[in-house]
């Protein structure tokens, strides 16, 4: 594998007049101790679109994603600098209530992580903690979330069985339903299908496509076919840097950067 220059980048400019952004980052850097894992990434994420982050393992795409709702705060010794603009405020600042922010920028993880609670409680747990006690509202929430996550038909008769008793693919869709139940603006997804079999993967992909109308989705994926199938924009990460950002169609047909070209045509990664 050859080394590519980090200065050779192409980030497509999206016109703020014609595009509405959910999140934009400016010079976002992530440090673990003294080591800089992400080197100043500035990217726009358009509202109600799916943006895919692709790149080899260790390219910093997951780290970047996790800093968007400040999940890196929980890792000892990590530090994030730069700007993350969301609804006109920089959410990477101490003035922001990080818990309130995460209600609106949800996350689905690589490995399904349902709570050891019933399906019903998995979905209603957080809303109840935030004060929603009305049974009818919660029932409704469970049904709509599970329908949106394409799981309702399979579990509607067993809502009180443990979330852990479901199959891997079903567990992941339960986690998506749990995230949707918070009615977030943005959904961050960290390789949500990597631990799943092909059938479950395609179900999850269909789910994401259906969610696009109401949510802005940012998804990290190893799977280039997946990125090509579902995303509107794609950012290619290499060695802690976003080297190229463009419409997905262009990234996969006419990439402007050599590294991107090599990666999407399978030369490395």
């Amino acid at each position, binding site marked *: 594998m050859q080394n590519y220059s980090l200065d050779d980048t192409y980030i497509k400019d999206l016109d703020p007049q014609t595009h509405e952004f959910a999140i934009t980052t400016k010079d976002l850097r992530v440090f673990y101790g003294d080591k800089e894992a992400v080197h100043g990434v500035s990217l726009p994420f358009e509202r109600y679109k799916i943006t895919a982050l692709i790149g080899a393992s260790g390219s910093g795409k997951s780290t970047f994603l996790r800093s968007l*709702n400040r*999940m890196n705060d*929980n890792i*000892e010794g990590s530090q994030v600098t730069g700007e993350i603009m969301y609804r006109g405020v920089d959410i990477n600042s101490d003035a922001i209530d990080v*818990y*309130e*922010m*995460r*209600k609106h920028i*949800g*996350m*689905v*993880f690589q*490995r399904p*992580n*349902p*709570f*050891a*609670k019933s399906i019903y409680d998995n979905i209603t*747990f*957080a809303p109840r*903690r*935030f004060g929603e006690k009305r049974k009818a509202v919660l029932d409704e929430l469970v049904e709509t979330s599970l329908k949106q996550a394409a799981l309702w038909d399979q579990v509607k008769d067993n809502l009180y*069985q*443990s979330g*852990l*008793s479901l199959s891997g693919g079903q567990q992941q869709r339960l*986690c998506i339903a*749990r*995230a949707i139940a*918070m009615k977030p603006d943005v959904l961050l997804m960290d390789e949500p299908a990597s631990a799943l079999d092909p059938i479950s993967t395609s179900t999850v992909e269909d789910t994401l496509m259906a969610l696009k109308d109401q949510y802005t989705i940012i998804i990290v994926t190893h799977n280039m076919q997946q990125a090509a199938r579902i995303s509107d924009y794609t950012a290619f990460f290499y060695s802690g840097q976003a080297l190229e950002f463009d419409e997905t169609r262009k990234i996969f047909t006419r990439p402007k950067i050599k590294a991107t070209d090599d990666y999407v045509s399978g030369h490395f990664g």
Partner: protein
Amino acid sequence: MSAKSIDKLMTGMLYLIAGVIVLLLAGLLGYILVQGLPHVSWHFLTSPAKSFEAGGGIGIQLFNSFYLLVLSMLISVPLALGAGIYLAEYAKKNWVTDVVRTAIEILSSLPSVVVGLFGFLVFVLQFKFGFSILSGALALTMFNLPLLTRNVEDSLRQVGFTQREAGLALGLSRWETVVHVVIPEALPGILTGMILGAGRVFGEAAALIYTAGQSAPALNFGDWNPLHIASPLNPFRPAETLAVHIWKINSEGIQPDAAAVSAGASAVLIIAVLAFNLLARWGGNRLYKRMTAG
């Protein structure tokens, strides 16, 4: 002798050692139960002890042991939960944490008689609680806290970090996630540790002889007002426990039937401690199965 026959010989020795240890336990239990159980009767379990004559029971001591146990667990369980949560969730990797861990380690290895003497100095004399249930419960808390705390910490760590991330990503704080997600999942381990701790507390005597005292004044089991001096619930009355009673009658007892009383009391104590152990195993397993099953 060839290496082969040495190997055979040593294997035989090891079987012998294992057998001796099993026999040792069987002998201990057998002795206590054979000597003690014939003496155990409803009358023995419920009537008060006698100082100078035969026929005394262990009723008050038995009650005291349980009351002291409940009271000390009421104090130590919340403290252990808080401290365990701190160590598992909030403690940073730095020298302060090292000092804290060392302190807990030292406390757990302190002889219980030292803990009892400290309790005597501070609770009995300084705070003027006197020889009382409360002093005893506080001494037992110090005795039990380090192991309970470590157990809580270990049990919390058994729950994967992804569970915490799940809660955090929904906008819940770490504290809410720990209290409402992680602790319920760690409950089997925590409970097992608590019950084992209870068994340890139930049999402890050295920490109590100078805190809860060595006398068991008569109680009026019709009066449950904790403020009345003869009430069983009064936390400021002296309270000799079952374990202290066994020590007391053996070291300075003048009852004619001291041997029989202590055998009976030992049998009751052993059965209680065994019950705690079995409960811990059985309850822990059951709870674990229930939580992981569909």
